[in-house]
């Protein structure tokens, strides 16, 4: 696994990958990063540099959806090439090593690259009982703290590590928390999504390798390149929203005509992600294009933000029950107030026992 010193050109040649293929890869990665095509050579040059950052990938309370989505365990393709560019020194799912040998490999990688490696985390960290999630006898919390100490930067992959995600959702039995609530002294890049878009992951790392810095982040620590605009702004169904043409049910004429899904609970307007532009499954489509409203999976508390099928313009807690109860209470109060008023009027109108006031005036 550790072939850091060998220059990229030799490794390409060893893998039988032509320089032309590498050039093609850099061109498509530039357009992925929404960088101008002229930067492709710059990316090529960066990827060739001998400096290859080591990456430690730690998985905590996660469903491996993120790993599967990012690493394309299926068909090795140009993406895997980029992982050749980095030295993925520890990944429980992918690495051949197991048991103590794997742990030893990680310890060694952390030691050798102290302060220089990138720590990638997917899954939230349970603060409840340590027993909820341990690896090799060590609680996720301790593993994270140890790994974070020497990390140059932390990339939180997926809504679970970024914002707590589904384990964090009410009632949060394990006391799960996002990484940012534990590690506060390291630069953290959140790449939320359930799962996040694969291209986002590779691009963040390509950006780090190319420019040596993390991409510009928004107030929730997400790369603005991908999370700067909400789905609604880049959704191809937006003209239907403007004209007020909405699908009423999932199979009515409107839905078939590809009208806006606002009324079916789409959370596009309040969700920041690049699904509408980069799309999923290599640009095939994204949830809205497939006919289902966006769930808002890249936003904190998306699971507790009210039903996925309740339109944004509906109140989440206001409902018949509360109003009926309030009505009953109101009527009771009204009657009480009315009776009190009548009583007060009666006393006011009762003739005063002592001399009537008017006579004196």
């Amino acid at each position, binding site marked *: 696994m550790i072939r850091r010193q060998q220059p990229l050109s030799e490794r390409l040649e060893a893998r039988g990958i032509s320089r*032309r293929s590498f050039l*093609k890869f850099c061109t498509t990665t530039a357009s992925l990063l929404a960088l101008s*095509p002229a930067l492709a050579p710059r990316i090529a040059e960066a990827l060739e540099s001998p400096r290859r950052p080591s990456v430690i990938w730690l998985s905590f309370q996660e469903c491996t959806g993120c790993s599967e989505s990012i690493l394309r365990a299926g068909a090795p393709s*140009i993406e895997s090439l980029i992982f050749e560019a980095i030295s993925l020194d520890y990944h429980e799912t992918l690495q051949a090593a197991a048991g103590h040998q794997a742990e030893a490999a990680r310890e060694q990688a952390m030691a050798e690259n102290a302060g220089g490696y990138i720590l990638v985390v997917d899954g939230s960290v349970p603060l409840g009982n340590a027993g909820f999630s341990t690896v090799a006898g060590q609680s996720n919390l301790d593993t994270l703290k140890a790994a974070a100490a020497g990390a140059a930067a932390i990339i939180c992959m997926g809504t679970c590590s970024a914002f707590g995600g589904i384990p964090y959702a009410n009632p949060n039995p394990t006391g799960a928390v996002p990484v940012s609530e534990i590690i506060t002294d390291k630069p953290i890049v959140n790449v939320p999504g359930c799962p996040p878009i694969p291209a986002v992951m590779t691009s963040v790392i390509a950006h780090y390798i190319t420019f040596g810095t993390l991409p510009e982040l928004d107030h929730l620590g997400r790369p603005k390149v991908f999370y700067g605009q909400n789905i609604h702004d880049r959704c*191809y169904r937006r003209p239907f929203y403007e004209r007020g043409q909405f699908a*009423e049910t999932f199979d009515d004429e*409107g839905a078939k*005509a590809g009208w806006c899904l606002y009324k079916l609970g789409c959370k596009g307007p309040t969700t920041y992600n690049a699904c509408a532009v980069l799309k999923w499954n*290599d640009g095939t489509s994204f949830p809205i294009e497939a006919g289902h409203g966006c769930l808002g999976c890249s936003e904190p508390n998306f699971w507790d933000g009210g039903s996925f099928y309740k339109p944004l313009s509906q109140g989440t807690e206001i409902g018949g029950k509360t109003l009926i109860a309030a009505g009953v209470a109101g009527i009771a109060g009204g009657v009480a107030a009315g009776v009190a008023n009548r009583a007060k009027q009666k006393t006011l109108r009762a003739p005063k026992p002592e001399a009537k006031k008017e006579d004196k005036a």
Partner: protein
Amino acid sequence: MSRPDLNAVLRQRARGTGNMVLVLHEVAHALEALAARGEARVIDLSSLPMTAPELDRLTDWLGRGEVIAQIEAEGRSEAMETAYPGVWLVTHRDRDDMLRGRYIEITPLPEILRSQPADIAAAGRRMARALTHFSDLEEAS
């Protein structure tokens, strides 16, 4: 709400966003610059908001030239000279044949077609090795 007329919707999507004309003007200016000052340019089509039918009409408008080059490098790529020499249409696909990029390159020859120096050097070494065990016997039969 009136019943939506599907054809009208599809016609509307075909008319698309109207960006096609803008791109073509940009290509025209780039072509003049190439002719006058030899400045090459690459326009990345994937990031421009255009509907699929609009993109196809764009490429149809540009037409076909005399050269269509097929490239096999980590998946198919194609470089096609349009009806306007100097304006090339380059498309890259990955091994899963997924479209990864579409570019209009205004240049005498797209970079992708040129054999790369590193590959040439490697080829030299490879040929030398292959020739070492090339025996007369094979040459005679």
